[in-house]
């Protein structure tokens, strides 16, 4: 625990100083290099869940390995890197190895867990991306097995109540629905789409006028982290693009509307959080309540990256520059917390779970999903800005 790099990061956060904020490419390259290291140290081809100053490198994590695959493939395309694509393929093959006979993917870190709905849905993203990239049948076959299992364990009302984290249904299963809709588009198999539409309808039935939906937290008795809140709305937003046509009526429009209300409310909270008109916005709180308020004195950086992604996706489709503007600021904040100027290779390029580092969300740890969503946000932001700068 007593390490110079930790002492430096703690001092940095305690004093409120920032790492130098550089260009998107440099930060993305650092994040991807660290993610590659997370694969190299895992002892398999999966991604270590991350690095912790308390526990060292963590075991491989199937769920987040799955959704990191599209991130590696995007990096491979951006850099013309066969190595990144080959890493992604190894992750996909490893996930096929750990897929359980019924089609689900083990929950939690390591590979010995029971199948879990959310985790399985996230792995679908990886297999679908690899199928598109390589054309290999094994990936779509694995995806179909997973999709069939997801449909089979959904209840009649459209919720997933079995094989779920802490035994309760979650609104953030919208990301499972999004994955099923992608699978339906690829395979033409209608039951995947129908299952997803039922779940999205169920989530929207709890929506309030300010965009809040219920059951976004890991546990009903806990506040919702921005991480799972952003999961929920990203799922709604992306699902909406698949649900615009008959027979789903206005389901897609409603899902998009709720995601947009979330995005604009949180944007306003963020932009107005300055303590001085000439200051910068404060970091978003780690958790939020149904009025989009957060009591926390720390921030969940992966949630911030995910929210920036939602702002960027909405900007792409609607052109409201305020969304892009807020995303640029939120991404700058994460850039300022990415551990780049350190001699410790275990954390160089990583993004902490919390700011400050000792915040409650993954205290003193660097989860792979924080780096993944940060890299995704940088990629999308870079593409959008290149379009604007070249216009």
């Amino acid at each position, binding site marked *: 625990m007593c390490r110079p790099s930790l002492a430096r990061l703690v001092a940095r956060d305690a*004093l409120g100083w920032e790492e130098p904020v550089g260009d998107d490419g440099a930060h993305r390259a650092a994040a991807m290099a660290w993610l590659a290291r997370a694969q190299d140290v895992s002892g398999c081809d999966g991604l270590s869940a991350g690095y912790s100053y308390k526990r060292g490198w963590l075991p491989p994590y199937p769920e987040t390995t799955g959704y990191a695959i599209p991130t590696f493939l995007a990096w491979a395309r951006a850099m013309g890197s066969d190595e990144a694509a080959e890493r992604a393929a190894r992750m996909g093959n490893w996930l096929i190895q750990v897929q359980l006979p019924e089609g689900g993917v083990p929950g939690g870190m390591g590979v010995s867990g029971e199948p879990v709905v959310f985790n399985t849905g996230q792995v679908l993203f990886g297999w679908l991306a690899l199928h598109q990239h390589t054309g290999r049948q094994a990936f779509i076959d694995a995806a179909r097995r997973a999709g069939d299992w997801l449909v089979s364990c959904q209840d009649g009302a459209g919720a997933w109540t079995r094989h779920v984290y802490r035994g309760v249904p979650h609104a953030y299963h919208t990301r499972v629905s999004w994955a099923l809709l992608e699978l339906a588009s690829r395979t033409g198999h209608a039951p995947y789409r129908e299952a997803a539409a039922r779940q999205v309808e169920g989530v929207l039935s709890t929506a309030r006028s300010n965009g809040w939906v219920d059951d976004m937290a890991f546990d009903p008795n806990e506040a919702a982290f921005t991480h799972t809140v952003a999961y929920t709305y990203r799922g709604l937003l992306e699902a909406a693009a698949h649900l615009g046509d008959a027979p789903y009526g206005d389901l897609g429009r409603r899902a998009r509307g709720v995601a947009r209300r979330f995005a604009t409310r949180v944007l306003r909270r963020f*932009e107005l959080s300055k303590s001085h008109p000439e200051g*910068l916005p404060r970091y978003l709180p780690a958790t939020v309540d149904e009025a989009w308020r957060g009591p926390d004195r720390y921030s969940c950086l992966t949630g911030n990256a995910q929210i920036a992604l939602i702002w960027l996706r909405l900007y792409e489709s609607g052109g409201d*520059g305020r969304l892009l503007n807020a995303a640029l600021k939120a991404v700058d904040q994460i850039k300022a917390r990415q551990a780049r100027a350190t001699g410790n290779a275990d954390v160089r390029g990583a993004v902490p779970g919390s700011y400050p580092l000792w915040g409650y969300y993954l205290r003193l740890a660097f989860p792979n999903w924080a780096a993944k969503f940060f890299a995704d946000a940088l990629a999308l932001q870079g593409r959008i*800005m290149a379009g604007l700068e070249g216009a």
Partner: protein
Amino acid sequence: MSGSARGADVPANSPVPVALTTGARVNPLAALLIWRLREAGHRPVAVLSTAPASGLARLAKARSMGWAAVQRRLARRGLPTGPRASGDATAPIDEYARQRGYPSPWQPLPAIAREAGVAVLRVGDLNGAAASEAVRRRAVRVVVNAGGGLFRRGLLEAVPGGILNAHMGPLPRFRGMNALEWSLLEGAPPTVSLHLVAAGIDTGDVIAREPIPRREGDGIAALRARYVAVAVELVAAHLGAVAAGTAARQAQRRGDGRQYFAMHPRLAQVVEARLGGASAVG
């Protein structure tokens, strides 16, 4: 248009006792307003200043802004900004002052005010009791915003003719911060909107709009400088009618526009590039 009876007891052509606000020790807008309003026959009587008066006050401001904001501001200050496309970006302000026969508006505002017989009142907060009491005691009819912070109930209720703000963007479409930059980014012509301050951000009744003239090679800084002359002339032209309650007023509806926030430097660079000017983002 909607009218108001707030100033109906004041003839439109009588001198208006007016106060200005400032958040900086050097403030060419406030300086030019003092001279121009006097020339128009009005009576600037006070400057309400929230400018930090000491090193300690500046430290307190830095603390309030957050160290990260200060760190970035200092870092930007060290960056080369390149040659300015239209010469000195402040030239339009100097040119306006010269045309009107005024001295340099870049002198410290307290000295300019003293010279003009205008009291400078240091107030920690424009909305505090001290500011309200000061304008009441001096029978100030209208306050003109030249910086210093947001206005809330305290001062709004203390000024019978209202608070005038020359907003750097076309209202109601572009409310909030960096309205000039946002309007340029979205393809709207650079405009000054003179309006009465209300409880919301830039939501009060609009009195007049005037385009900001553009010259070849103008970047953001040059347009901001050109704004100053347009703003001063708009205030001078409409102050009497506003104080008398006879100014034509266009009410804003909430849905007519959007509130914008401080523009990220990368978007400001996009605006600069589109203008063809040099990078002057800060």
